[in-house]
């Protein structure tokens, strides 16, 4: 009886903790890109069917996040950015998070298949397995290219949206995939440049930890040089119109400028502020030297949102091609 009073017999996890397991911020980006794929795809779709499809894709992505947190609780506890997550902080038990992720995965894939078609459901299932199984379990700790290959998981939502609307995944859908896929390395490595200490502590071979800051800055620049033309491509392939063309070119040049500035900087050359002064610091409390990395990280989010917003606006207003 004494033991029952000191060690909780039942979990004291709250529903909010389970909601946090779904990585709501990542989920919002998934909803946005999936909705864009669904709206940009040719043909019309019943709005209720479309809404249920988006919900399924969002829950499926959230389920993958829950599985990721269940599998990485110990690693997350070592990093400033992730130590507050429900499993890492001990608010949700690992097995509970795992069960939550598995149940939501099954429900979301099944419902998406029933609601739209089994190509979309299969792609959603593939995304969940790719992220939670392939990326989290196999890739993340084995290679500094983890984020490059793993980035595919985050790039699937527009293809799933497109497949949900049409039952097909043509090259236009894969072009949207490619935009997010090539956007991921500069975005993630810019963040890693000013939080490399965290990754090193957790034993994750992110590029700045494994190859150093200089090599990372060069690779960011190389990926940006590949990414920007691909981001502009929809404007010249009959997939998007003038608004997208202007947004992608102007934003792409700004992206390239920031990547070049980062390459010339010394961002990531020295340990971050928290380590340097031996105290806890907020994640974005970066050295002035790391500012180019933080600026590129912030702008990359803005640019991706702008690209997909432009596609969405053109498709909804009929201004696209």
């Amino acid at each position, binding site marked *: 009886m004494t033991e029952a009073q000191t060690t*909780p017999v039942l979990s004291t996890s709250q529903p909010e903790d389970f909601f946090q397991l779904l990585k709501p911020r990542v989920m919002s980006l998934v909803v946005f890109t999936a909705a864009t794929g669904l709206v940009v795809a040719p043909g019309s779709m019943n709005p209720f069917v479309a809404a249920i499809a988006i919900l399924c894709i969002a829950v499926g992505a959230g389920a993958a996040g829950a599985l990721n947190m269940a599998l990485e609780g110990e690693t997350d506890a070592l990093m400033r950015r992730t130590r507050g997550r429900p499993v890492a902080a001990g608010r949700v038990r690992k097995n509970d998070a795992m069960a939550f992720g598995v149940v939501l995965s099954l429900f979301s894939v099944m*419902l998406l298949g029933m*609601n739209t078609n089994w190509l979309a459901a299969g792609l959603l299932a593939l995304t969940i397995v790719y992220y939670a199984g392939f990326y989290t379990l196999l890739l993340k700790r084995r290679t500094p290219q983890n984020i490059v290959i793993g980035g595919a998981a985050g790039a699937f939502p527009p293809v799933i949206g497109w497949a949900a609307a049409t039952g097909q995944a043509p090259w236009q859908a894969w072009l949207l995939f490619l935009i997010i896929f090539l956007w991921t390395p500069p975005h993630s490595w810019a963040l890693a440049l000013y939080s490399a200490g965290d990754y090193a502590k957790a034993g994750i071979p992110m590029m700045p930890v494994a190859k150093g800051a200089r090599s990372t800055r060069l690779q960011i620049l190389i990926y940006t040089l590949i990414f920007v033309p691909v981001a502009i491509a929809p404007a010249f392939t009959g997939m998007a119109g003038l608004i997208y063309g202007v947004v992608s070119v102007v934003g792409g040049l700004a992206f390239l400028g920031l990547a070049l500035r980062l390459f010339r900087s010394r961002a990531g050359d020295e340990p971050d502020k928290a380590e340097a002064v031996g105290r806890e610091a907020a994640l974005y409390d970066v050295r002035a030297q790391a500012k180019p990395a933080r600026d590129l990280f912030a702008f990359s989010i803005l640019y991706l949102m702008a690209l997909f917003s432009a596609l969405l606006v053109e498709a909804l207003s009929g201004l696209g091609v």
Partner: protein
Amino acid sequence: MIILSPEEVRARKRRNLWIALGLVAFIVLVFTTTVLRLQQNQADERALLESQANGAARVVK
């Protein structure tokens, strides 16, 4: 005998409530999906029959 703390009981109650709401939402979504798919299939079938009837009429002419 296992004695649960008031905090554990409260947390369990809240979780159970949300599981119930989630299940109800899932049932509603499955029902809605079924109705929408039935409507869509009926519309497709009607369109198919009409196109077949039009084709037959053209052959007779």
